Every structure is written in structure tokens, then in C-alpha cells.
């Protein structure tokens, strides 16, 4: 009975008359198909410590993590093309053009629209649905940079090639359960272990409204990744390598408030996440070592981190934000490589304040000041940033 119902739903899309609802009134120009938008961003950064030498004691960092570039610099330009492929599929492509004139396929996925019973299947390259911040593109961040916990434990954000299955429950309380099966190419996975099936995730999201003015979402996610020579540290010159298993758990909570649920004038967004990562395997320091053979030894470590932030729109177009980050290297057993993971008794942390102004939904100018103590040598950082979007109307994601 259930089967026949689902079969019917699958067939439905083939049997409808789409003409009536899809027809545009006479004389109305058709909108773009597909939707194309281009994100332009750039910043000026004052960084006290040289970002080239950035490390966090007790942590091994993935590629392209750090406070960014000193001085005036172009950010990533993102080109996003998306559309319904047909009545059963949706496709989205996001290319990031780096200031170094390289093009990266950040996301390129297709997703089902026609599966019944709240099911959705996605395939391609995408940011994993773990955590809250993980799937947000940098232009949607409320601060210039991501949380320290994401920087240190997930190399900013975890995206990979794979498939995702998700299910939304037929209840008024929002319940979404899902899992991903991924290639395992990117940090905290690496080397596409297990014949290119190196990582898997599970996630659960709950959410709802409290009265008309409050809305919330809570999530719990797990990531299990196998690494085969995952690189970290000074990747261009003297990379370290890790082979073994990583387990990541994330708890996230987002709470939003606006008077009568109308965010137009004022609104408040509270957000906090806790990330935990446990790793077990072998670690090789400086793989390309010129001074004798590289040292490989057993490695087991537990790292964690959390952040909490509040962003308040105090009047139309203006928002102010406050964020606090903290990391913890809990237990590290690295044998012969122990010196590399010396925390120097330091607790990495950072406090940031930001103010931004948006003329319209499509432009944003931001000032951010951070007191960054992720390294023992405290750094006062000042950022001025612009983020502009051209083309299709972006999504108001929660």
C-alpha cells in the first residue's frame, strides 16, 4: 500500500498539465533561466602577526586556514548558477575564483525534487550538512572569518564529493534526518581512503517557532572520516601527514527573534556551536624532510572548540555583532612527534565585534575588530570588507 502510494507520487510529475501554472501573464518578460548570480568581495585587513606564520599550538591545520591576507586584497569571487533541471531535479553550481586566479569548483550538485515522503537525494560536490555554519558560503557569514573551531577542526568548512539522503518528518515540529557518503578527499578526511569512500556523516535537525516572534533550530551531527596521508601544517613546503580515523561531533543551536516575526526593522540572531574531534592513527612530521628520514609515530588526539555569537539588527540596514571563540587541545599522544603538538599551556581564543551596513539585500559593507589569541602572541586585527551580489535574488536561508 505504501509502495503503491510512493509509486503514484513518482508518476505524478509526468502526468500534470504544467502549462496553466507556469504560464506568464501576457507581455511579461520571462525571468532568467537559470538563475545566475555573482558575488564580489574584497577586504582590507590589518593583522599584527604575519599570517604566513600562523599556527595554533596543539592543532594541526588544514590548507588555506588562517586569518587571511594582510592589506588590501580581493576575496573569493563566487559565481553561482542554479535552476530546476526539469520537474524532478534541481542543479546548482558554485565556482570560487580565487584572488590567485585559480578557479575552484566549490559546489556542483544535483538534487531531487520529486521524491515522495519528505525524502531528498543530492549528488555531486557540496558542503556537508553537519553543523550550522558548515554549509554556509563565506559571503553569508556574519563575520569576515569563520569560527576558530571550524578553522581548526574542519579547515574552515568540510565539503566533498558524494551523495546525501535526507528526510523531513511530516510533523509541525521540523525534524530532518540525513546522512552523507563522501569521497574523503578534504580535511578532516584526506587521500580519498577506502577506494574513494572515505567519509560518512549523520545529522539531525530540529526546529520550530515559539510564538510569532521566535524561531529556532538545533542540530546534532557526526562525521567519520578515514585519512590516507592527509596533509596539514606547512602544506606547500613541509607538509605533515596523517593516516587514520577521525570522528567529529557537532552540536549547534540557532535562535532568532524579531518583533511579531517581522525581521525588517529589527532582529536578533543568537548562534552557538560546539565541535569535538577525536583522531587515532599515525602521524608523519615533515614528509619531504631533507634532514634524515621523516619521523612516523602513533598519534591519538582529542580537540574541541566552541563559539557563541549574537548579531543584532538595531535599525534597517544596520547590524552589530559580537562573537567569542575558544579551542581546547585535550589529550594528545604523538610519541616521537609530541613536540609538534605542544600547546605551550595556551588556551586559543578570540573575541570579535562587527558592524555592517547593507544598502539593499544585495550589498554589504562591514567593519570587524578582533582580539585574536589563537596564538600565544595576541593579535589585534581590523578588517574592512565589502560583499556584493549581482544577478539572481539570493535565498533567505534560516
Amino acid at each position, binding site marked *: 500500500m*505504501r509502495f503503491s*502510494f510512493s509509486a503514484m*507520487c*513518482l508518476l*505524478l*510529475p509526468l502526468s*500534470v498539465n*504544467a502549462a*496553466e*501554472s*507556469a*504560464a*506568464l*501573464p501576457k*507581455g*511579461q*518578460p520571462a*525571468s532568467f533561466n537559470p538563475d545566475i548570480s555573482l558575488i564580489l568581495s574584497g577586504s582590507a585587513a590589518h593583522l599584527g602577526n604575519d599570517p604566513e606564520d600562523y599556527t595554533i599550538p596543539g592543532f594541526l591545520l588544514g590548507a588555506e586556514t588562517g586569518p587571511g591576507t594582510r592589506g588590501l586584497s580581493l576575496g573569493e569571487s563566487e559565481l553561482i548558477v542554479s535552476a*530546476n533541471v526539469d*520537474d524532478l531535479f534541481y542543479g546548482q553550481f558554485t565556482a570560487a575564483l580565487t584572488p590567485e586566479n585559480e578557479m575552484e569548483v566549490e559546489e556542483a550538485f544535483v*538534487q531531487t*525534487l*520529486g*521524491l*515522495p*515522503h*519528505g525524502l*531528498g537525494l543530492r549528488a555531486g560536490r557540496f558542503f556537508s550538512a553537519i553543523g550550522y555554519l558548515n554549509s554556509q558560503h563565506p559571503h553569508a557569514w556574519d563575520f569576515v572569518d569563520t569560527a576558530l573551531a571550524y578553522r581548526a577542526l574542519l579547515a574552515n568548512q568540510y565539503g566533498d564529493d558524494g551523495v546525501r539522503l*535526507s*528526510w*523531513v*518528518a*511530516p*510533523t*509541525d*515540529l*521540523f525534524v*530532518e534526518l540525513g546522512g552523507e557518503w563522501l569521497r574523503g578527499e578534504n580535511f578532516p578526511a584526506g587521500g580519498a581512503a577506502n577506494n574513494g569512500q572515505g567519509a560518512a556523516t549523520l545529522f539531525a*535537525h*530540529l*526546529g*520550530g*517557532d515559539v510564538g*510569532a516572534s521566535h*524561531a*529556532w533550530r538545533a542540530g546534532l551531527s557526526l562525521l567519520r572520516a578515514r585519512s590516507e596521508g592527509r596533509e596539514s601544517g606547512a602544506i606547500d613546503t613541509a607538509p605533515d601527514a596523517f593516516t587514520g580515523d577521525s570522528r567529529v561531533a557537532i552540536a549547534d543551536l540557532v535562535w*532568532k527573534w524579531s518583533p511579531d*516575526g*517581522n*525581521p*525588517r526593522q529589527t532582529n536578533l540572531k543568537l548562534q552557538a556551536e560546539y565541535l569535538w574531534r577525536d583522531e587515532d592513527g599515525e602521524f608523519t612530521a615533515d614528509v619531504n624532510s631533507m634532514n634524515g628520514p621523516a619521523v612516523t609515530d602513533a598519534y591519538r588526539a582529542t580537540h574541541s572548540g566552541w563559539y557563541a555569537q549574537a548579531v543584532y539588527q538595531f535599525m*534597517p540596514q544596520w547590524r552589530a555583532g559580537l562573537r567569542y571563540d575558544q579551542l581546547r587541545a585535550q589529550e594528545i599522544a604523538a610519541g616521537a612527534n609530541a613536540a609538534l603538538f605542544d600547546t605551550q599551556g595556551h588556551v586559543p581564543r578570540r573575541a570579535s565585534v562587527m558592524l555592517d551596513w547593507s*544598502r*539593499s*539585500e544585495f550589498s554589504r559593507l562591514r567593519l570587524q575588530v578582533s582580539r585574536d589569541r589563537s596564538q600565544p602572541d595576541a593579535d589585534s586585527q581590523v578588517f574592512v570588507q565589502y560583499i556584493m551580489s549581482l544577478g539572481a*535574488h539570493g*535565498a*533567505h*536561508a*534560516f
Partner: protein
Amino acid sequence: MHVARNAKEYKMKILLSVVILFLSVAPAQAALKVFTCEPEWAALVQELGGTQVTVASATTALQDPHHIEARPSLIAKTRQADLLVCTGAGLEAGWLPPLLRTAGNPKVQPGQPGYFEAASAAALLEVQTRADRAEGDVHPGGNPHLHLDARNIMRVAEQLATRLKQIDPANAAHYAARRADFARRWQTALARWEREAAPLKGMPVVYHHRSWVYLAHWLGLKEVGVLEPKPGLPPTAAHLTQLLTQLKGQPARAIVRSAYEDGRADAWLSERAQIPALVLPYTVGAEGADDLFKLFDITIARLKEPVLSPSTVLRIGQSKEATR
């Protein structure tokens, strides 16, 4: 032993209730679940569907339908809907697409019978020949606030009734009867509103946002200015000052805004230009507009206040500002 059996029974009861919960969710419900983007369509579906439908609206009359987020609760509602009724014409461009993509509900995807756009039933005004964001957040497909021309409500009702019959053919007779009843009551009301609003013809008004072009088109109001410098941008001091100067030479009878818009700029201009600032319900659920009939009753009555007695209404307008 007794305790153990109780615990076992308890477990069985839990299991049974879980199974019942799943079973109760799986089969098609007796009533059609309709989810609308705006409250005016929820009210219309209620008129046409009566007891055969359960209706929920994504937005309330106190929320700006342009600026809603794809909240988890809205995904949950979209997931369960048999029919989705929205305005279209880009009004929900920021939040409806993500809802549709995450909800996993094939019935309400665009092109399906379960997806209905009111904009497909009415001729839109202000269709743009060029789309340039320097002109503000314009909707190239036309101004989407079409429900404020009461004649459009009837046009949408006709198509919506047809769609209800298509989705729920078992109750076709029920929908046909309710449609006929609604049409009769609406035509009567329409004649009355047009009679009552006759003195409003040519009345010069200032809009807060261009939400009122359909109302103006229907009743013959004359737009002489808009508080927003560009569609979607909040009023600026420079623009208001310019508007004030303009109003000295070309006076208006009222400044109108919806219940979800901030009234400070309206109050500022009202005080200096000596023009009453009116809060109109805009949609069902605000300012006493409990249904579609009351929406137009109250809208027309409020608009007539300054025409009948400008001085009293100035006070009403200002006291309303003060209470907000």
C-alpha cells in the same frame, strides 16, 4: 513479576502509540492541507474550502512578505501541504525556493497541481521592461500586491476553486457550491465597495511602499509620492525632505502604509505636511480585518475618513502613530 509485566505493557503501549502515530500520518487526510504564503490567500482558501480544508499561512499581516526567512517551521508546513497557494511574481523569491527544495514534497513543486500562483490569475501592473537593481528591489514580472484590487480576488477565486476540485475531486460539488456562494457574496460586496468608494476617485495619496497600486487602480486613487526612495529601501531624510517640498505644491489627502511597515517616517511627514497618516490592514489579520470582506470594508472606511473630515482624522492618524 507484577512490576515486570507492567513495564512490558508500558513498552508495548509506547510501541503501539508510535505505530499509530506513523499510521495516522501515512494515509491521505480527510481534510486537504493547504499552505499559503500570505494571509489573504489563506482567507480565500478558507472561503472556498470550508470544512474540507485546513489552512495555514506562512506569513501574518504583521510580517513583510518580501523579507521572510525559510524558517524550519515553514519547511515543516511545506512538507505536509497538499496545496501551496502563493502570490508569485517574485514576491516570495527570497524564501519560497529554499522551502520547496528542502521540504521533499513533490506535490507542491512548481508545475504540479499542488502549486498555485495567484499572479497567474490576474493581469499584473507595472511589468518592467528592464530589470536594473539601481531602481531598487523591483519585480520584473510586475507589482505582486495584486490582491488589493478586490476584482482580482474574484479572478483568483475562480481559478483556485478549479484547482481545489482538481486536487480533491471527491469534494468537487462542495467546492463548486462554496465558489458560487462566495461569488454571489463577493459581487454584492464589490458593488457596495465601489459605491462607497466613489468619493475617493482622484484622491491624491502618498504610499509608504508601492503596495497600493492595485487598490489605486481599482478605486481611482492618485499616487503623488512614495516614502521609499526606491522600492525596498527604507525612507531617507533627504528623500522625505524632498517629498515634503513636493507636497507643499501638490498636496495629498493621506499617507498610507500597511500594518507591517514602520510608521516613523509616515508620522514625520504627516506632522510637517499636515496630511493624515493612515494604517491600512493591507491583508487579513491586521487592524480588525478578520476576513477578506472586512479587509476592504476597513480599507475603504479608513480612506474615506480624511475625505469626510480632514481635521478629525489627522488626530486619529497621529494617535495611531503614538500607540505603535
